[in-house]
């Protein structure tokens, strides 16, 4: 057996407790496993979960993942201003941010920044901010070219209730006009 080059995709999701950051990572990870990939997800949070800072670090690879630490994220999902500030330097790829939560984005790398108004859309469409994470996941699926059907299946497995609304929320994110190439 040999240990050689191993391609890996690093995804960092962070926000406040209660926004569904870990759930989002869990669905993303399970979808990748269903497609035959190896996955690690580190989750870290303060002592209190609701309202405190939460971070999910995912690594997805066709082979066993050695280091589970995200040091250079290919995608960074920022659900809060403190998260955006804290982890900006850990990302070298796209940054999906919720403009209602992250009001000031850095001037550098505008082409890397993608605004996904997940919280606003969740309020408008579902009258409930809890669906923001599924809207964001839909957007992430589109932007990263992930398998949408696998993502839906994984979501249905992970989330016990409100399947219809969650599917609809995924769809809102997946079909965001701004993300669809002309």
């Amino acid at each position: 057996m040999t240990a050689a080059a191993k391609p890996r995709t690093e995804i960092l999701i962070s926000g406040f407790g209660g926004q569904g950051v870990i759930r989002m990572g869990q669905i993303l990870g399970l979808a990748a496993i269903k497609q035959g990939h190896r996955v690690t997800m580190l989750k870290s949070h303060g002592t209190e979960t609701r309202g405190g800072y939460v971070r999910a670090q995912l690594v997805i690879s066709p082979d066993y993942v050695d280091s589970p630490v995200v040091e250079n994220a290919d995608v960074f999902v920022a659900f809060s201003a403190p998260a955006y500030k804290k982890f900006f330097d850990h990302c070298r790829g796209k940054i999906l941010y919720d403009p209602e939560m992250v009001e000031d984005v850095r001037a550098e790398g505008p082409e890397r920044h993608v605004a996904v108004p997940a919280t606003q859309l969740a309020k408008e469409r579902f009258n409930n901010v809890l669906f923001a994470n599924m809207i964001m996941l839909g957007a992430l699926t589109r932007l990263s070219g992930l398998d949408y059907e696998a993502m839906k299946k994984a979501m249905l497995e992970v989330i016990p209730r409100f399947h219809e609304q969650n599917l609809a929320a995924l769809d809102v994110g997946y079909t965001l006009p701004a993300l669809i190439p002309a």
Partner: protein
Amino acid sequence: MSTLAPAVSEQLVAPWVEWARRYTRGRRLLEAGTYALTEGAIAAGCRVFAGYPITPATDIAEYMSKRLPQVGGYYVQCEDELAGMHACAGASLGGLKAMTATSGPGYTLMHDAYGWSITNEIPLVVVDAMRVGPISGITGAPGQGEFYIARYASHGGNFETIVLSPSSVQEAFWLTIDAFNLAERFRTPVTILTDQVISDMWEDLFIPEDYDALDFVVPRKNNLMMPFYPVGSADLDVPPNVIGHGTGVCVSAYTHTEEGYDIEEMEAQWAQTYRLINKIRHHRDQLTRYETVGVEDADVIAVAYGANARTVKTGVLEARRRGVRAGFVRLITLWPFPDELFERDVPYVVCELNYDGQLVREVMRSAPDGKKVRFMGKSAELHTVAEVAAGLEGVARTGRIPELPYIWTEVR
């Protein structure tokens, strides 16, 4: 981060290499280390869990409270960790495989029960999910502060311990079964020394579909005949005592005879110590589990275990990519300490999650030249790939580990 290391030899020496090859029908999940430790125990035939919840081992208690009733087992919530491990010892003496789980603050409370279990040769499994300390430290941050505590898990001396450490969620599953097997075969408590990262981390996990079909699980046998304690021998596979079947087995904390009665004789002390130490030392070939990468031609070898072995391994590959001939040793069996893995006379860089330096002292003792052993201690967070690569590059090119924030290099 992708590494572009040229191909290099890799070896994993553990019984589950074969187990995983033979059992391929099952489910692939995304689950936490605590889940894998629980399922491994259930698969190994554990039917009693007694303990007291503590972060980051609480989920093991929670999973156990759900799983054990489903398989005809018993979950006991105790008033503290001391009671928890004593209850496990009692359950094991009653004929059932038992496990408890805790973190550092609870592990130290178990030492009275640990000594009882060692001297009375009671098979048990204890999980210690280490967090950073001293004492309560930070609940959600990893540490490796119990390397020596797990070795010296009781006062009084005159014993050896068996301690295993997994470095992935999948390995936690197989290794837990292995720990139960060793506990039965060696008639002793076995510690699974894991950490907050492995217990809390979620990872792809294969679970075989039918636990009853796992033919490598060592079943519980009961000893209903005298002598209950084979003092003076180093024999393995001596079934443990069972109480409650008219056996009249005597269990006490004192130096004992073959029948278990207290005795204050030099000869008995010698015979008991001979057994407790040599039943493990004489069978080290059956106990050593490890992983290596590229050690044959390495100019510098990184050493680690548990969670941070993963970033250390990636750091080794990154150093190789930078042209440093770096090797890697990951210990899975921590105790008895596998001296034979450190026979090459090259610099070793020992990476562990504490600032005081514990594992590094054993590598200094085992290596041909202890002065060539370097220390990279970190606390509360895994070593980064960048830090490990810089450390290895520094030692290979200049003989020194460069100054890095939060990295401790002094061993006194």
